[in-house]
């Protein structure tokens, strides 16, 4: 206990005594962690957005011609029994025809020759708080199609595939970039600490010459590394938060379709970055100091 106080005292004294070095290396750690934290921020937001996109999936449940009101209610109930499913709208035959006319635009002439309305009525169904795999969607489709009065259940297979492909691709890219970034940060931080300790290798040598044990010499360096790492992480987070508040794009319309809510890191990610800083500082010092121990 007394010894730890001693170590801490010396670590702080040494940080003060080597202000310049610590200033420089803590700066580098901050920047590296800033890159990392920015990456976490971007990919967390991307993930949110991807999820909300997946959630924006909708089904169309087409009714047979001549379904009566009771059957309609039965179908609605059947739909709402599906986990997470919610009826967004009922589209009557008339509404369907009007929508089609709008979609056709200048080709509306197509509808002129119609003698009767050939379009079915349908329920538009969306899913809330639930991610659906293609498999699950298929099962839901099958089960709903068994309900009396339901003609067909449709979802846009193609659209789904594209989005899934895009999200999948982005996640892979994110993992690669994230991994590379992690390695880069680790490497840069270790190197920086190595250089910082290199500038002080005489100290290590002298301490060993007056009979200090390895740990007596190492512990202050490790503590200094840990302190630097934590400080670096805190600075990085502050800078990130500051620029987040500055820009505050917050809500981004993308692809017209989904609305992206830019959120800041959550508590867990905060802790992750600080923990990473701590680990990097400790590990960096540990690796770095090993080099200078051949006395």
């Amino acid at each position, binding site marked *: 206990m*007394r*010894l730890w106080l*001693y170590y801490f005292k010396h670590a702080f004294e*040494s940080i003060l*005594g*080597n202000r310049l070095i610590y200033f420089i290396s803590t700066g580098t750690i901050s920047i590296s962690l800033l890159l990392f934290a920015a990456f976490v921020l971007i990919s967390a937001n991307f993930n949110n957005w991807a999820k909300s996109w997946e959630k924006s999936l909708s089904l169309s449940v087409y009714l047979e011609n001549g379904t009566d009101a009771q059957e309609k209610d039965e179908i609605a109930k059947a739909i709402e029994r599906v986990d997470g499913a919610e009826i967004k709208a009922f589209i009557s035959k008339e509404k369907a025809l009007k929508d089609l006319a709008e979609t056709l635009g200048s080709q509306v002439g197509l509808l002129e020759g119609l003698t009767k309305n050939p379009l079915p009525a349908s329920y538009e169904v969306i899913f809330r708080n639930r991610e659906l795999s293609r498999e699950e969607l298929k099962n839901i489709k099958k089960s709903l199609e068994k309900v009396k009065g339901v003609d067909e259940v449709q979802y846009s297979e193609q659209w789904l595939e594209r989005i899934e492909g895009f999200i999948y691709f982005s996640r892979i890219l994110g993992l690669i970039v994230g991994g590379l970034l992690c390695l880069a940060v680790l490497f840069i931080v270790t190197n920086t600490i190595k250089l910082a300790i290199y500038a*002080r290798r*005489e*100290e290590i*040598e*002298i*301490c*060993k*010459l*007056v*009979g*200090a*044990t*390895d740990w*007596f010499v190492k512990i202050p360096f490790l503590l200094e590394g840990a302190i630097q790492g934590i400080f670096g992480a805190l600075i990085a987070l502050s800078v990130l938060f500051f620029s987040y508040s500055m820009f505050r794009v917050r809500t981004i319309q993308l692809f017209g379709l989904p609305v992206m809510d830019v959120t800041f890191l959550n508590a867990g990610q905060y802790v992750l970055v600080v923990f990473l800083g701590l680990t990097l500082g400790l590990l960096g010092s540990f690796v770095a100091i090993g080099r200078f121990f051949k006395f």
Partner: protein
Amino acid sequence: MIQLFRVSKYFGVIAALKDATIRIRKGEFVFVTGPSGAGKTTLLRLMFGAEKPTEGQILINGINLGRVGGSRLDFLRRQIGFVFQDFKLLHRRTVLQNVALASEVGGEKWTTTRKKTHQLLRAVGLTAKEHAYPLELSGGEQQRVAIARAMVNDPLILLADEPTGNLDPEITRDIMILFRSINLRGTTVVVATHNKELLRNTDQRVLFLQNGMIHE
């Protein structure tokens, strides 16, 4: 206390020490002298375990330096005080901290450390400079810090390499009296020096080194 059996030390082709056999008894006071580059520093560093001999065996206090390493060597070093020819002070710590370091390293109680540190700084005449940093000191003052540090642990053995090279004759005399007094309290003292003055007025044992060869 200190025994060397046929010790040689080569740096590449340069023989810094050749086939030296020396036995220094507990409580002895020995001078090592010889021209520049004769091997005095090498001899002292070998006794301290700071260099490994190319050939031969070195026993300190019955412990074979060739067979010891790690924390055992650290422990041994805490019982040996060394005044380095180039001082080897920590530039980022004050005089007080430099001297105290050697004591703290052994896990000494803080009060004891403080008492011993102050006492030794007084003995070498540096009480006024205790909060200065080594680079703010004159050459002779730095040398005296190194001397104080070597003695703060009441070492079993004191190895002093040219400890008066930067000191004027008056302070040199004071330092020699200090060495004599610690020697009288049982510490084995080995002093490497060029200073003919020191050797002239002494009846102590003198080892003469030349080209790495020992002549008693």
